[in-house]
């Protein structure tokens, strides 16, 4: 099995052309990135608004949970029949899946900011906007990034499923290989998809390191030890 897999990867035909690894990888990243951007545009402002004002939080979380329960395959096939076109329906489906985790993360992040700190900021004379961007957002960054990370993992996994409705991406290796029991192709597809997910996950760990202010990270660590 391992030798077959190595041979599959060693075959130069698998690295070029519309069916090649680079092309499929780019397609997969493309669907993920596009859906992520759209989801961020929708979910982050919404989450910030609800988290900052504290209004409608429960409704939001419930709605988010309900959407999480939507079966991926069902949503994608439904949308395909509606739009009779692979890319639109899949992107919409992916966006719908990505919004709840980002929303939940943004909202939870803002909720988790210490009221004392927010109060102090108000006391120092910060306006609502300043409070939001200079205090609440930096403090909630770990949870927000966590939500986005969840969304990205969901997207990578689901984009593989979307190959079923004719989409490209790494899922093609999985489904096409499975149809003819070409195990090396199937395992290769599984491996590539997993590696992509792990790589993006590591990226987020690095992003977390880079973006979250040192003070916030230290405070979180102290809180954990003291608990």
């Amino acid at each position, binding site marked *: 099995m391992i030798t077959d897999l190595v041979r599959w990867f060693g075959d130069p035909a698998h690295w070029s052309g519309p069916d090649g690894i680079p092309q499929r990888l780019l397609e997969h990243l493309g669907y993920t990135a596009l859906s992520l951007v759209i989801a961020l545009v929708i979910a982050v402002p919404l989450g910030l608004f609800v988290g900052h004002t504290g209004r409608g939080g429960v409704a939001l979380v419930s709605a988010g949970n309900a959407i999480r329960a939507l079966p991926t395959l069902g949503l994608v096939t439904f949308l395909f*029949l509606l739009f*009779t076109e*692979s890319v639109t329906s899949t992107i919409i489906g992916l966006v719908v899946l990505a919004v709840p985790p980002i929303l939940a993360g943004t909202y939870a992040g803002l909720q988790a900011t210490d009221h004392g700190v927010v109060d102090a900021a108000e006391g120092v004379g910060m306006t609502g906007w300043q409070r939001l961007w200079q205090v609440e957002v930096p403090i909630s960054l770990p949870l927000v990034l966590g939500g986005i990370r969840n969304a990205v993992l969901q997207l990578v996994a689901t984009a593989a499923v979307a190959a079923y409705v004719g989409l490209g991406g790494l899922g093609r290796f999985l489904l096409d290989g499975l*149809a003819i029991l070409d195990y090396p192709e199937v395992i290769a597809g599984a491996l590539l998809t997993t590696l992509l997910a792990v790589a993006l996950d590591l990226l987020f760990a690095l992003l977390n390191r880079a973006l979250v202010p040192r003070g916030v990270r230290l405070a979180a660590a102290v809180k954990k030890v003291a608990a």
Partner: protein
Amino acid sequence: MKRLVLLVVLVLAAGCGNPLAGGGEGGTSGDIIIGASDVGESLLLAQIYAGTLRQAGATNVTVRPPVGSREVVVKALQDKSLSVVPDYSGNLLRYFDKDTTATTSQDVYAQLRQKIPPGFEVLDQAPAEDKDLLVVGPQLASSGVKTFSDLGKRCGELVFGGPGQWSSRWKDKIKALYGCEFKEIRTTDTGGPVTVAALKSGDVQVADLFSTSSTIAANGFVPLVDDKNMFPAQNIVPVVAKGTLSPAEVAALNRVSAALTTSELTRLNVEFTEEKRNPLDIAEDFLART
């Protein structure tokens, strides 16, 4: 603590009954599990076989949801996860003998009986055929492309859409017979909605669909004439894992195969795909007619 124990007991009790037993685990001996490939019509045929066997007195007959293509099905027949599968004589022969030259119904069936490996057997074939067709949209057809030979001259500028395994099965043959090398061979699906949508929108200009499929007429597609007989005859034939059917059950399947003609099959497909009837309902009505 008591509540915890109660919960655990309930859960174990629930876990003891596996509703999927006999579905994919091979089942106990005496179970007949009918499979279907990912061609839509295959499920319809599976239900017809199921109905026939039940009428012949078999009690443990189940139909599994459709799985992948022939490779998966053959593997499942080998390890007896499946007992019977409806298949197509021409493609089945090519699966076991890639270089076969048989093209007519009789030749294909005779060779199939010879070439089929031990452990499998094929029963009588039906007169009904469901062949691969290369179809094009109306514009391309009216521009003078009527046969595969006509197509061969234009292939280099055309994009083709078909099942994932089409490339490995036919790419060399179509080049050898018709000099056809498509600009691009794209994987859409096995004669399903993605292929139809792609052909309709012009994403692909040539597609592989099936002759009994109702989507060809419904969308105004034009099938091309296979003037050099690249695609062999494709009669519907039951493939059986040896030892899973009794003689009476075999006789029953042979009877229903004899009654299955191409026009009947086309009609059944219309009921399935266009009228959206339940395949078991369609099978029951068909069996009542024969």
